[in-house]
């Protein structure tokens, strides 16, 4: 089955990647490799002290990790080069400020992570493999909240994950993203979502009665118990995902009823 939409993910966590960048290194190595000699993959970072960012350079993971460890980067990203067709785009970006510098987070968690994979890239890498890598990263950083979206076009998927805007989005898409941000200041304390993929933090799992109850009673296709004490829920099977703004909203409504104790209430 070929993938028809892009996949994007967002995570919120407190793990200090500047002190222990291993989770990020594992993810980047698996998706992009150690280095990109032809410049197809590039690394980018935003300085923690507000200096102008440098133009992205070809990926050289060892050097990028050195920079993360040095604590000088507020955000570190690895991505396909500009001009890459949208369905081949791939990008992962994580907050990497050390604990002694301002985190600039708008959620209850100190750091954000977001990732996007174009449809053709998912076909090339395997959607399940990509998803498992993201889940493993979420586990390693003990994610306290997070979501996975399926959406088209790729830019919409990217903005859904990062809560960003773009001139390429329709007003309806921008409005939808902003509506999803209602509980953004509390994410971590409450879950983000539910969406097709929903991360629960360890505290959420406890509130819901433990992983055994979730595995038994959660109305979803798959529950992944995480070593961090959290969990990852897939609302429907991966070969029949829920596309943003399309399809039957019933599975998410049902999941929301189950997750109500860990969701924000107006």
């Amino acid at each position, binding site marked *: 089955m070929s993938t028809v939409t892009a996949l994007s993910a967002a995570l919120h966590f407190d793990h200090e990647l500047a002190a222990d960048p291993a989770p990020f290194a594992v993810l980047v190595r698996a998706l992009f490799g150690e280095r990109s000699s032809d410049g197809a993959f590039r690394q*980018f970072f*935003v300085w923690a002290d507000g200096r102008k960012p440098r133009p992205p350079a070809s990926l050289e993971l060892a050097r990028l990790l050195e920079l993360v460890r040095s604590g000088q980067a507020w*955000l570190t990203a690895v991505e396909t080069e500009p001009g890459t067709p949208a369905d081949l785009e791939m990008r992962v970006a994580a907050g990497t400020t050390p604990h002694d510098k301002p985190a600039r987070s*708008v959620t209850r968690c100190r750091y954000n992570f977001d990732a996007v994979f174009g449809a053709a890239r998912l076909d090339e890498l395997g959607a399940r493999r990509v998803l498992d890598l993201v889940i493993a990263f979420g586990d390693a950083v003990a994610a306290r909240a997070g979501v996975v979206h399926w959406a088209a076009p790729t830019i919409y998927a990217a903005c859904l994950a*990062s809560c960003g*805007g*773009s001139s390429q989005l329709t007003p309806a898409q921008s*409005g939808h993203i*902003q509506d999803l941000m209602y509980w*953004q200041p509390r994410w971590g304390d409450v879950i983000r979502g539910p969406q097709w993929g929903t991360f629960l933090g360890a505290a959420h799992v406890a509130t819901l009665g433990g992983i055994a109850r979730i595995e038994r009673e959660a109305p979803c296709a798959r529950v992944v118990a995480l070593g961090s004490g959290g969990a990852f829920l897939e609302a429907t099977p991966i070969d029949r995902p829920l596309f943003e703004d399309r399809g039957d909203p019933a599975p998410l409504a049902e999941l929301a009823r189950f997750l109500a104790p860990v969701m924000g209430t107006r």
Partner: protein
Amino acid sequence: MRGSRVAVVIASGAVVLAALAALAYGDAKDDLSRARSDYDALRSRYDDEKSKTQHYLDESVKLRQMDKDQLNALIGQICGLDIERDGDDAERMAKDLTDKVVDQVRRNYDQTVDDGSHVWDELGRLESDAKSLRERAHDLEDKDDVKDDAGKLREDCDKLIESIDKQMDKVNRDKSTLDNVKNGVMNGANNPTIRARMQYGKDMHVKLQSDRSCDEKEVVLSSGRPDCIKFDQDDCKVIEFKPDTLSESDARSQAEGYLSDVRDHFKSDDRARRCKQNADGPVFTAVGELYPACRP
């Protein structure tokens, strides 16, 4: 009788010692007061000298200024995307700009260096005075009753010396630049090609800020200076403009870094009422927008 005489002698001795001590303390306080007043005078001389130094530097930089029309034409040649590029023409323009600046610097070099020497000498005198005042303050730190105030004065002197050093460093660097230009070497922002590219980036920012009708431009926040903030009905955003050597996501990521500051800064601003609201206040999205980079 003999005992009472001894007592009188001891008592007189104590009075004399107390008087001497009072005199010594009094001296220390006077010394500190004089030193503080010398510091104030020094500080005022420094302020005066700082503005003279800035004036000198401004004049020196003016010497190296490029002709605006020619620079614009060069920007068009190097960065313009809608015109046929002519490598030879751009090279000729850059050379012409360089020649003019070098010529201007050479004609005014002696006078400028002379002015710079006066500024340098005065800063040197100031520094020497500040250092001897710091020694006086340091000595007074040994006196118990003025110890704390003397310590503070010494710290003030240290800061003043540091500021003077910075000014001297500026004059020094300016002299090196001047020497380079005189010898025909145009580095960094003095290089017409580099200057043209820098100016192009600035012009693109101004153009986009105007095209997008930004409500706020380059507001100073602790996290930096976002290029553009818009309070559109139900769609408030923080926009970062970047050349297309970066990706839209890179620009968006940088805008994300400003969001928490922007939210806090404009939370009570009436315009923020137009934004969608979330559990804690106005919702801003981060937007990255690219412009064509200057490509020679």
